[in-house]
Structure formats: structure tokens, C-alpha cells
């Protein structure tokens, strides 16, 4: 079988970035939880917040380490696999990545040391400051990388000179048309991912009887946050979708599986898109709904894929990934609302409710990955929308070399993912310790540890 180096390069990049994004998604959201725990401890002086912080800061450290090392791979991969991208768009992509390193990477990496090891070496205020700096660093990192990604989706502020792209207006480059929507959508996605992780792990600790003081309270905070954040995300997602419709109509047509441009387009709930016959088999449709969602008008016109022949993304992966993302989102709303209703009525979650939450621990990951597949595969065949084709910028490595590196990455990532998840649950099965290393009292454990 002849393996296409272009396909291999894309698979490898997709693998690296998919694996990488799992960890920053957690740390960006979790950083704010840690900050919250620290602030509550500072305000109340209640040791329970100290126990909670002591546990979650370990989870943060482990997740952060995975994010850092997989991120370094990303910084090299642009050059090793997509040299043409840097030659043509490097004048714009380079500085944005540079600002990420300068403003975010050093900040978070430096203050992380104090956050993890410095508890007894600096004052409470400095430690609180270090925690805030780490949270700020993770968010700044998201700011710059999402600015670059959004620019690749909706390029602005550029001009051509000698065949390469250069910036004409940096503010227009940074705050390009899709940036605000994407940043909000991703930031909330990070919070939701962290919230379900916190809820799932806390539920696991309660089921194992090792929660220690405060675990029920943290679980409650997480569930209530989830109940607010998940519908907020639907609202932001809708705005983001409208923005995509304006700038990348072919992507939206692929997401919805709409082939012909039409007014009053039906919403396809499910079906199997067939690019060769240019139809969706077994389509389950709701009349006029797609027009209503996309144009907020029952008879609005929606452009179909047949208007973009040869210029639109592969339909099936975008179509299915979109349904996974939305489906996961709806499931998260359902679980968080049912749990919240129970809690707000003053009842505790029982075994079944806790087990469901454990099952949803990594729900955010699934939705985030599916969402990124929608937006990234949806941008194809372009690497910079409308300007540079992905196929034109790939490095010409021997397929054997790519297969070898791809295999190595697959093996190491599979190993790390298994290690991460099993370590997370191993850590969570151990009784709580405070930062000072003292174990929780038996009494607190039996009382379920209410704060």
C-alpha cells in the first residue's frame, strides 16, 4: 500500500495536538478552582479548604506536566512537518506564538514552582499571588494560541508581499473576526471540562470513602457551576456558529449536512453523509429548523455544499464530530441540572448519582476534541482559510520516517494516557492529607466532612 506523506503528516499533527489539548483544557479551568480554594482558605482560615487545595494542586501539577511536555512537541512540529506554513505565514504566526512564550509560558512555569513547593517558603500572600500568576499564565497562553488559530480561520489585517503574508495591522490580526467567539467558547469549554473532572473525582472519593472534609461541598460547587456553565456554552456556541456562517459557510454546510442552497432548510438530526452521491442517507430531519438556528428566521437561506465543490471540507467527519459535541453538551446539561435540582432541594447525591458523575469525569474531553475536529477539519482544504492550502505547505519526509515517528508518538501517548487516568484514580483513592501532611481525622471522614 502506498502511504501518502501528506496524510501521515496530518495524522501525526492531529494526534499530537489532540493529545496536547486534553491537558491545558483541564489546567486552564482548574487553575481558577485552585485560586478559589486558596482565596477561601485565606478568607476563612478553615483547614478544610487547605485539604481540598492540597489534593487538587497535585492533580494540577500532574496535568500541567503533561501539558508542558506535549506543548513543546507542538512548538517543533510547525517546522518539522509544515515548513511551508512558516515560510508563507510565519510573519504572522511567528510573533503570535512568540508572545505566547514571552507572556505565558515563563510566567506559568516559574510561578508553578512556588505554587507547588513554596507553601512554607513564602508568605500566604505571595503564595496566593503565585497561584494567580499561574492562572493568568494559562489563560494568556489560551489567548495567544486561539488568536493565531482564529486568524487561520478568519484571516484579517494582512497583505501579500513577495508571495508571503505580512501583517498590515496587528490589532486586526490579533482581534480577527472569529477570535472573540472562539476564545469565549474555548474558555468556557475549559471551565466545563475542569468542573466535570472535579465533580467526577470528588464523587469517586465519596464512593471510596476517602473524601475527607469538604469533598461534598466541592462537589456541590462543581455541579452548580456546571449547571450554569453548560447552558451558557450553548448560547456562546450559537453566536460562534453564526460567526462561522458569515465567514466559513462551507464549514457550516458540512456541519449541518446541507447539500443544496435552500430557503427554510431542514435540520438533519442524524444521517450518513455520502460525498460521492452528494446526499445524506437515512436522514432524520426537522423541517425549517436549520434555517431557524442558523439565520434565526424560519425561511432564511442557507448555502449548501454544492456551491463549494472542491473547496469544502470532507463532510462526514465534520458532520459526525459536530453531533458528538452537541450530544455530549446536552448530556452534560441533563446531568448537571438533575444533580443540581436534587442538591438545591437539600438532598444529597446517592450512589447512582455519584456513579453517573464518575462516568462523566472526562465528558469535557470528548466534547472539546469533537469541537476541535469540527473547526479544524471544517477549515480544510485550507490551512489559512482562503489563502494557503494545507497540501502546499507539507514537508517532504520519506513515508517510512513519518511512520516510525508516528508509531513512536502513538505508543508513548497511549502509555501516558493510561498512566494519567490510572494515576488520577489511584491518587483519588488515597485518604486526604493537608498541605502540612497531616491525615484527616477519622471523625471527619465519617461525618462526610461538611464544611
Amino acid at each position, binding site marked *: 500500500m502506498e502511504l501518502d506523506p501528506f496524510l501521515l503528516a496530518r495524522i501525526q499533527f492531529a494526534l499530537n495536538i489532540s493529545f496536547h489539548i486534553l491537558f491545558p483544557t483541564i489546567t486552564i479551568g482548574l487553575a481558577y478552582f485552585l485560586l478559589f480554594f486558596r482565596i477561601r482558605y485565606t478568607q476563612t482560615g478553615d483547614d478544610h479548604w487547605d485539604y481540598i487545595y492540597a489534593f487538587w494542586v*497535585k492533580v494540577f*501539577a*500532574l496535568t500541567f*506536566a503533561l501539558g*508542558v*511536555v*506535549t*506543548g*513543546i*512537541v507542538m*512548538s*517543533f512540529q*510547525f*517546522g*518539522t512537518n509544515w*515548513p*511551508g506554513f*512558516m*515560510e508563507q505565514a*510565519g*510573519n504572522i*504566526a*511567528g*510573533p503570535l*506564538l*512568540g*508572545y505566547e*512564550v*514571552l*507572556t505565558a*509560558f*515563563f*510566567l506559568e*512555569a*516559574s*510561578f508553578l*514552582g*512556588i505554587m*507547588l*513547593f*513554596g507553601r512554607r*517558603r513564602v508568605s500566604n500572600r505571595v503564595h496566593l499571588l503565585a497561584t494567580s500568576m499561574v492562572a493568568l499564565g494559562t489563560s494568556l497562553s489560551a489567548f495567544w494560541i486561539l488568536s493565531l488559530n482564529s486568524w487561520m480561520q478568519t484571516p484579517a489585517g494582512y497583505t501579500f*508581499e513577495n508571495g*508571503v503574508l*505580512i*501583517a*498590515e495591522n*496587528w490589532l486586526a490580526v490579533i482581534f480577527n473576526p472569529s477570535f472573540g467567539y472562539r476564545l469565549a467558547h474555548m474558555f468556557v469549554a475549559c471551565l466545563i471540562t475542569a468542573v466535570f473532572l472535579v465533580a467526577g473525582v470528588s464523587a469517586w472519593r465519596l464512593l471510596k470513602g476517602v473524601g475527607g472534609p469538604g469533598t461534598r461541598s466541592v462537589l456541590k460547587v462543581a455541579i452548580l457551576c456546571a449547571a450554569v456553565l453548560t447552558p451558557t456554552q450553548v448560547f456562546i456556541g450559537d453566536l460562534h456558529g453564526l460567526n462561522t456562517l458569515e465567514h466559513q459557510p462551507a464549514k457550516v454546510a458540512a456541519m449541518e449536512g446541507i447539500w443544496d442552497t435552500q430557503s427554510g432548510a431542514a435540520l438533519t438530526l442524524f444521517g450518513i453523509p455520502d460525498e460521492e452521491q452528494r446526499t445524506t442517507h437515512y436522514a432524520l430531519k426537522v423541517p425549517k429548523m436549520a434555517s431557524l438556528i442558523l439565520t434565526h428566521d424560519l425561511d432564511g437561506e442557507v448555502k449548501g455544499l454544492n456551491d463549494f465543490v472542491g473547496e469544502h471540507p470532507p463532510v462526514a467527519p465534520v458532520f459526525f464530530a459536530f453531533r458528538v459535541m452537541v450530544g455530549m453538551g446536552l448530556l452534560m446539561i441533563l446531568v448537571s441540572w438533575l444533580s443540581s435540582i436534587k442538591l438545591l432541594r437539600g438532598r444529597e447525591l446517592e450512589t447512582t448519582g455519584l456513579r453517573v458523575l464518575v462516568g462523566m469525569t472526562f465528558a469535557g474531553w470528548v466534547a472539546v476534541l469533537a469541537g476541535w475536529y469540527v473547526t479544524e477539519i471544517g477549515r480544510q482544504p485550507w490551512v489559512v482559510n482562503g489563502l494557503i492550502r494545507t497540501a502546499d505547505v507539507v*514537508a517532504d*519526509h520519506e513515508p517510512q*520516517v513519518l511512520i516510525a*515517528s508516528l508509531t*513512536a*508518538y502513538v505508543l*508513548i501517548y497511549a502509555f*501516558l494516557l493510561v*498512566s494519567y487516568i490510572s*494515576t488520577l484514580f489511584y*491518587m483519588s483513592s488515597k485518604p486526604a492529607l493537608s498541605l502540612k*501532611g497531616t491525615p484527616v481525622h477519622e471523625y471527619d471522614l465519617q461525618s462526610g466532612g461538611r464544611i
Partner: protein
Amino acid sequence: MEALLPIIFVAIMGLALLLYVILDGYDLGVGLLLPLASDKEKDVMIASIGPFWDANETWIVLGVGVLLIAFPAAHGIILTSLYVPATVMLLGLILRGVAFDFRVKAGSHRKAMWNQLFFVGSLLASTAQGWMLGSYITGLEHTQLNMVFSILIALCLPALYCVLGASWLMIKTEDELFLKAAVWAKKSLSPMAVGLLLVSIATPLVSQVIADRWFQLPQFIGLLPIPIASVIALSLLYVLLSRTPEQLLMTNPWMIFMCPVIICVMAALGLAYSIFPDIIIGQLTIWEAAAHTSSLKFTFVGVVIALPCIFVYTIFVYRVFSGKASELTYD
């Protein structure tokens, strides 16, 4: 300004990579020395680099970042050409980086495995970096002779890291481990010296241009301080490490650590003089590879503001964690 900016950026890139070699060099060195220590000592060794390694490693991201920002054409050529060693290095850095956390969190039954992976990761990363350095100095031309040269550097760079790592341990540890570290440093000296000598001999041999730059009067006299300072630092290191254990315990360990640091700085200066103004030896100058002035100007603003801040809080972190590492506990 247009001609000056590429020079400024190549200087920043050189500084970032030099800092990487020194700072993550001692981290990787500690990783390389890990199998020689007892289990209890392993904990202290890793505690001695725990608060620093993450920021230390970020310098290579900045170095590669500047290469990408300021010299995108060279970035593509260099990284495509170094694809295999770069991949090996990245896999090594991944293993080393995650082992910090997994070794204490995955449970005691897994600790030995993660300690081993910590070592393997450090070894892969440091040999791959040597290989990359060797290929780069020989102009990225994959001839057989150049391969042999690259392999030799790949074997010698870890020795430099071991010297850095062992002398860092002398700053951070006490008593038995301190003395062990002195022995490790001394044993790593000769392979390190051989490596330095090899690079010094090979660079003018590989390139006539470089040979002309060095072996002409009056430049030769002006350049003499570089090899002389290196030889003095190396000799001083040998003398200091040859002291009796009692004398060693009285020696300021920072003096020992500064010797390999001076050697790194001198090697960097020598290399910079040899290569400048090329970014790929004999193929591409920094001005040919430079990004558009608008990009360089925009990034320069960020560098001027951010770099001093980075230095300030880096120094702050080093001050917070100054002193011996033995008591640093973290699980």
C-alpha cells in the same frame, strides 16, 4: 533598523539557547546521574531541580520560537533536516518531564519504573541534542564523516550535562551525596574535555570560511581569550574537584558550578563568532532568512517588555528556593 533587527534577534536566540544548555543542562545532568544514586538520594536529587526544571525547559521553546519568528525560512530548513534527532529529543523530554510527577504520584510500586524512565528520557534528550548540534555545525549536510562527528558530539554533550548536573547537586545537597556528586563531576570531566576539543578542531576543518576567520592575524590574538578562559575554567574545575573531601566541604559550591558555566559561555561565543552572520553555515545568512521587518518590530516590543520581567521573576524563584534541597518535600 532593518539590518540591525536580525542581529538583535539572533543574539536573543543565542542567549535563549545558551541559557537552555546551562539551565536544563543541569536538570538533564541530574537525570543522567540518577541511576548512580540510592533511592533516598534520588528523591533529594529530583527535589533539587523540581521547582526549576519547567522554567528551565521553556528557554528552548523561546530559542526555537525566536528561530521561527525571526528566521522562518531557516526554521523550516533546520527542523526538517533535523527531523529524526528532534523527534527523539522530544520523546525524551516528554518522558523526563512527566516522570517528575508520575514517580511520586503513581504509587510506590511504580516508582522504580518512573525513575528509570526519568533517566532514559534525560539520556534520549541530551544525546539527541548533541546529535543536532553536530549536524548543525557541519552545515546540515549528511555525509558519512559528518555523521561520525555528530555521533561523537552526541556522546560528549551528555558529559557536559553531567558536569553541570553534578556541580548543581553540590550546591543543593550535603554530606554524602555532596561528595558523591564531586566524584561524578570529576569522572565526567575528561569526556567533556574531549568533546570540546573535537568541536574546536572540527569546526575550522569543516568550513574554510571559519578557519580563515580564526587563524588570521590580528583576529587570532583578539580571539585568544576564548580558548584561554575555557582552559583556565577547565583546569580550575579539575583542581577544585581533586581536593580532599574535607577541603571540598569547605569550598563554595557556586565556584565549582561557575566553571562549566564559563565553559558553556565561551563555547557559545566561539560558535557565534564562527557562524555569524550565517544562520545555516554556508547556505543562508541571517538577513536572507529574516522575517519581515513589521513582524520583527512587533515582536521586539514584546521582548523588550517581557524579557526583563522574566529575568526578575526567575531570580525571585531562585531566591525563594535557595539553599540545600534536602528538606524540600512534595508528594
